[in-house]
């Protein structure tokens, strides 16, 4: 078959000869240029028209544009703040920063709790127990069909309708639920705890190196040395020894009723608690479905084959099923995390002061509508982008490596 080399499919691909653009409607390149100029032109014209109107309107209302207002004293009372704040002396810039921190606070805690609850419910839907499967199914169907805002308002009024601090629902002397929110005991943080934490972080690093070593040994010899004794040693025993060596301090600050309110302890204000409750239960109903479909996406043959190989059930889950399920789970999970973060902006309806709420107050007080909205959009775009980037990195890490 000497003439196979004449087959055009086997010849090296050659670039099409470059043609000069002809000024004719029949030339696709020319058409593309005309269309783009036209469309971009229209968009630019509209934008220019809107900007010109805006400038005229701002001039007529004597509003100066710019972010100069950030340096002025805000005077917005803020109930919850992660950094010290005094409405009488601190600026709009500080107030808006507190808003961002509050948004991040609720988003991070919400994402963690929603993932845990959603995973449990998703696994519950797959349970062999008929009652559990139906109940979790009912949960998912109902919560998904009610607008989140309605759920938030409901939780908020429920929490406001709780009895006062004196008749609070309580769990021993530790936790109190009243119309002032949820009160929990707080660990008094001391230097011994910091050192125990340092030991724990060091343990994490050591465990990571041991796992890598174990991988290398397994690749080289086929036998995997046990990592778990080292892991338990450096992650649990070492921090405990450090903590005990420094006197093992452990004092809980319990919330106590003084007069009309509680003193001390950890406080979840009704606004924060309602928002967290609403966001977590709502998002968990979506996460449950994602987890369920992810686990169901792993073919039964994978379980059977790994059992035939004699793997333990823990190893099957960790090494065979979860890596495959995660590939299906992670992309939709990313969008749920983004949704939760964006939905946290509904805080404005129940009075939790997140970035939208504080920016809204700011723009009402200063009249800086454009700057206020731009600030909100910039904050959320940056948060969304960060979550996307992180989850894309994670997704790439667990993605199937095909040879």
């Amino acid at each position, binding site marked *: 078959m000497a003439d196979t080399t004449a087959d055009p499919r086997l010849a090296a691909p050659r670039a099409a000869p470059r043609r000069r653009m002809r000024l004719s409607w029949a030339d696709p390149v020319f058409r593309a240029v005309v*269309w*783009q100029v036209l469309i971009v032109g229209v968009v630019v014209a509209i934008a220019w028209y809107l900007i010109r109107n805006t400038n005229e309107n701002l001039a007529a209302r004597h509003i100066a544009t710019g972010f100069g207002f950030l340096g002025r004293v805000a005077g917005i009372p803020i109930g919850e703040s992660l950094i010290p704040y005094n409405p009488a002396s601190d600026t709009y810039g500080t107030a808006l920063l507190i808003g961002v921190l509050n948004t991040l606070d609720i988003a991070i805690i919400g994402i963690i709790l929603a993932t845990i609850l959603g995973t449990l419910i998703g696994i519950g839907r797959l349970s*062999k127990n008929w*009652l*559990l499967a139906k109940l979790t199914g009912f949960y998912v169907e109902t919560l998904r069909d009610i*607008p989140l805002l309605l759920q938030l308002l*409901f939780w908020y*009024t429920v929490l406001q309708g709780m009895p006062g601090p004196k008749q609070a629902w309580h769990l021993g002397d530790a936790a109190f639920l009243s119309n002032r929110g949820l009160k929990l005991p707080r660990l008094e943080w001391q230097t011994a705890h910091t050192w125990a934490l340092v030991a724990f972080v060091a343990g994490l690093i050591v465990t990571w190196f041991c796992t890598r070593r174990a991988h290398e040994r397994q690749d080289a010899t086929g036998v995997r040395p046990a990592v778990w004794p080292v892991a338990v040693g450096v992650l649990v025993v070492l921090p405990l020894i450090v903590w005990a060596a420094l006197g093992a301090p452990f004092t809980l600050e319990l919330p106590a009723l003084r007069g009309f309110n509680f003193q001390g302890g950890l406080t979840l204000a009704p606004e924060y608690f309602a928002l967290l409750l609403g966001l977590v239960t709502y998002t968990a109903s979506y996460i449950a479905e994602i987890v369920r479909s992810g686990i169901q996406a792993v073919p039964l043959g994978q379980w059977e084959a790994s059992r035939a190989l004699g793997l333990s059930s823990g190893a099957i889950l960790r090494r065979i099923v979860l890596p495959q399920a995660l590939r299906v789970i992670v992309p939709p999970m990313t969008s749920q995390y983004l949704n939760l973060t*964006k939905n946290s902006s509904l805080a404005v309806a129940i009075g939790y002061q997140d970035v939208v709420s504080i920016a809204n107050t700011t723009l009402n007080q200063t009249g800086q509508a454009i700057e*206020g909205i731009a600030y909100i959009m910039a904050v959320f775009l940056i948060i969304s982008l960060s979550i996307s980037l992180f989850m894309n990195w994670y997704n790439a890490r667990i993605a199937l490596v095909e040879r």
Partner: protein
Amino acid sequence: MSEATLHIPTAARTQTAIASLGPVAWARANLLGSWWSTAVTLLLGYIILRVIVGVVEWGLIHAIWTVPYSANGIADTSVCQAAKGTGACWAVLVDKYRLILFGRYPYAEQWRPAIVVLLFVGLYIVSGLRRFWRKELLLVWIVVLAAIGVLMWGGVFGLSEVTEDNWGGLPITLILATFGAAFSFPLAVLVALGRRATKLPAVKILCVLYVEIIRGVPLIAVLFMASVMFPLFMPAGVNVDKLLRAQIAFILFAGAYLAEVVRGGLQALPPGQAEAADALGLSYWQKTGFIILPQALRLVIPPLVNTFIGFFKDTSLVLIIGIFDLLTMGKVALSDPPWQGFSTEVYLGLAAVYIAFCFAMSKYSRGLERDLNRSRAR
């Protein structure tokens, strides 16, 4: 059809198998499979029983359905106040349901929004039936949406004129969701096509920017933009109604999300379809209109319905910019002094309305998904 009939014998067989085993065997397998499963069943059974008994006692046995009215028409809610905590006060819904459903629309004219709601429901049902999936459906949408406009505004055919300020309740929710979907859909298709137009890089960048910016920010930011920034965009003296501004914001918001759904359909289509169309010498719009879109859109009907359910729920966010949709009217009803404090009943009533719409749509969407996938399942 032949596939459906093929399945019947197997289904019938399993059913008889279960019947022959009897409920005891079923319970042993599904409720008491292991000691762990038994414990879960007992615990859940106890909790569910307690909750059901509590709900029935609160919602039915001790519930109060009507309250006496004083001479000047103010409700006397002392009975409800006394029963608080032990019995539901459904009297608040009996008293306020017209206000919640139709807002401040003139009382004597409220048959008009009622018909509008029925028209919307009819439109959804007709659009959902596959035998009506043809070009004439577009005409039906235009006619029905126009009729809805005439009924709401009035001013013609002897109907008295009612301005948008007096609209409220369920029609607003349905209008925002439906008009939002109807107008954002063509926009979404164009943006999705633009995003895949590799030969038009400038257009592609514009589409990517639009989609990613809208999807990156919460709906509230877009609604705030419509309520505080939009007036600045307009030339002096031009006032755009608040409802229309919210509607535009919704269309822009929905457009970005729908565009991604449509793009999914475009990507799922094998490239051979476009290449074959090119080989036949079709122009871009012929190719898109006759070959690509009919197949791509068919693929994404179930996710489109799911996205629509999302918009339907999201319309409740207009509460924050002060538009009187269903949820806002619920809050307005609660601001009436005698009825303050009966929010649980009102919120449950509102939730029932939202669940009725969303559950029907999601049930339909799942059925459709199964039907459309039937050709692929072997």
